[in-house]
């Protein structure tokens, strides 16, 4: 018997061609055999132009966030563009205090991209979304001519539900508040840099790419919502840039202790070698928490009790400063600014 008179996608050696983005049979087949199978959920299975979602619970509000992902290399130790596209948007929702529920995924594929690699990416995305407890409920695929894309670009949009009583926001930091981080800084940025620059280290530096919604729930389970003043995931620009965004939004300053900030020894060594600063390197699975001083111990204990926060640390406090300076007491005992990232973090020349 020949059930449907279609030849299945050649997921081993096939490649994306312009037909896959034309909206015809080839597009439908790609969606059904690759995306549909991997993400498998009732909304997607309906095959409609959009997903009809249930209303949030009474008292909850909706939070929406979007993120475009362009990473080179597409695969790196600790993740790939697929898992990153899920974590990025899930984390944007989580740091708003929301429980992430649904994602959309829009793929821009470059003509000639191997289907086997696309499958790896999509499978990884599906696994990441399942682990985070969010469903990919709608999507889109476009194909651009060879040379006009970088293999794969993925844009994800997420919707989450914000329970009442949670109001974290960058403007809410107050002098006296305590600054916590959930773990070591710079792992993702250095993992990518190591692959790009083909630097070999004794043991591999892995990206920390992870969904933070579980960690955020653990925090809100231990600390009253109104005492968690700011939540952030220090992605591009790293810890330094995130802290500066917060002082600018809240009209405060900060005093941070360098020696208290966790940095993986491998990352520190690599930074030393390349002349980079781990506080400017991206993280994809770390949380910055700013909370009322009376709750700092509880918050730290809650973070540390979660597998993603085992190395959480208290790194400093919010101070009054109309200039918004983030000051750092160096391990040596002097002071300096921990300023905004300026330009790209580049390895030094000599």
């Amino acid at each position, binding site marked *: 018997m020949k059930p449907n008179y279609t030849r299945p996608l050649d997921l081993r050696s096939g490649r994306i061609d312009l037909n896959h983005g034309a909206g015809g049979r080839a597009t439908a087949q790609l969606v059904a055999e690759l995306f549909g199978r991997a993400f498998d959920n009732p909304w997607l299975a309906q095959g409609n132009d959009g997903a009809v979602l249930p209303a949030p619970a009474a008292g909850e509000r909706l939070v929406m966030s979007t993120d475009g992902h362009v990473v080179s290399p597409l695969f790196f130790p600790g993740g790939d563009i697929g898992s990153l596209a899920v974590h990025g948007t899930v984390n944007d929702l989580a740091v708003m205090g929301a429980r992430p529920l649904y994602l959309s995924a829009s793929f821009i594929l470059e003509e000639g991209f191997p289907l086997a690699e696309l499958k790896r990416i999509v499978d990884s995305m599906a696994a990441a979304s399942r682990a985070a407890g969010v469903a990919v409920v709608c999507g889109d695929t476009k194909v651009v001519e060879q040379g006009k894309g970088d293999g794969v670009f993925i844009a994800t949009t997420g919707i989450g539900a914000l329970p009442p009583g949670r109001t974290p926001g960058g403007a809410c930091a107050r*002098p006296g508040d305590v600054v916590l981080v959930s773990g070591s800084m710079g792992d993702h940025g250095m993992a990518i840099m190591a692959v790009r*620059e083909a630097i070999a280290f004794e043991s591999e530096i892995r990206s920390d790419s992870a969904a933070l919604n579980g960690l955020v729930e653990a925090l809100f389970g231990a600390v009253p919502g109104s005492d968690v003043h700011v939540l952030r995931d220090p992605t591009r620009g790293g810890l330094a840039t995130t802290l500066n965004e917060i002082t600018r939004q809240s009209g405060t*300053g900060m*005093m941070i202790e*360098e*020696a208290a900030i966790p*940095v993986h*020894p491998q990352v*520190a*060594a690599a930074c030393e070698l390349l002349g980079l600063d781990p506080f400017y390197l991206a993280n994809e699975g770390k949380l910055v928490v700013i909370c009322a001083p009376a709750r700092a111990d509880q918050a730290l204990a809650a973070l540390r009790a979660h597998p993603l926060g085992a190395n959480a640390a208290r790194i400093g406090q919010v*101070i*009054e*400063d*109309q*200039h918004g*300076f983030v*000051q750092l*007491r*160096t*391990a*040596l*005992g*002097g*002071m*300096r*600014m921990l*300023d905004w990232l*300026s*330009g790209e973090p*580049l*390895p*030094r*020349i*000599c």
Partner: protein
Amino acid sequence: MKYVDEFRDGELARGLSAAIRREADPARDYAFMEFCGGHTHAISRYGVIDLLPHNVRMIHGPGCPVCVLPVGRIDMAIRLAMTRAVTICSYGDCLRVPASDGLSLLKARARLDKSRADIRMIYSAADALALAQREPQREVVFLAIGFETTTPPTALVLKQAQALGLNNFSVLCNHVLTPAAIVAILEHPEGTGVKLDGFVGPAHVSTVIGSRPYDFVAAQYRKPVVIAGFEPLDVMQSILMLVRQVNEGRSEIENEFTRAVTRDGNLKAQAVVTEVFELRDHYEWRGLGSLPKSALKIRSEFARWDAEAKFGLDYTAVADHKSCDCGTILRGEKRPAECKLFGTVCTPETPLGSCMVSSEGACAAHYNYGRFRDVTTAG
């Protein structure tokens, strides 16, 4: 491990800090110049000045490769890319140095027809050579800058280009010499310039040239030099050694960085450099003016790989922006915040002068790490 080390660093730093405070004579002031941008960066990044008494002042020197590159030299590279079908390769910071007409190499890149010419960032001289080998149809020009540390790698790629008979590779040489710059700092006209009690001597540069080339500073100018590594503790140790020399009325060349610097330096590297380069009669530095025998040019045996010869390039001096204080900053006569443009017109995102470009530049270091000191902060 790292944390233990850093904790120890903090302990040692406190010890050194206490020793400097103890030994510095409260009845006088000490002004030392750290020649290298690497030291400037370390001092700013680790907040070393907080560990020094008020009467010990550190003055930033001109030892920052991109800072001393004059506008005319960048213009020359931009002109080359714009008018000839070449790909200019250089280090990241070099691409951002402001040139004439509001351009930099980076901004010029956006205007190029990429099918003919290009401007690329590289991490080493070898990257530029590799590009030329990989793409024989591409005419590659390596814009070489830097003090004695980066000179041997440039010499090596020139030798390799010669050995390979590469026709599509050349070097636009802007290598400069540390001792000449020190002379320029010391030889200022009467009544101008900065009063100095000694130098923190270069780290990486000295690994190549050794400590001997600084002898004249002590012999002729009676100023102590202490060669120091780039770690903040190295810098503090060298400051303590300088304070002692001053107190004891000595002016000697001392070496704090004995783990890497010898009296004679790296003779092999020096030999390669001498084989490939010779002294230029004059070279114009930003801030220091035209200095005799202060830079290197490619020997005529290697003329085929010398971009200046290959493309018939001439240097035209171009004045700095009229409000720019880079010159006085590079000579240590002013502090960054004293420049009218600092932090207003000139910022790391929109540098107007070269000292704001590299993280080793005095203005960039002060902007990124120290500008909070210029305003009083509460808390």
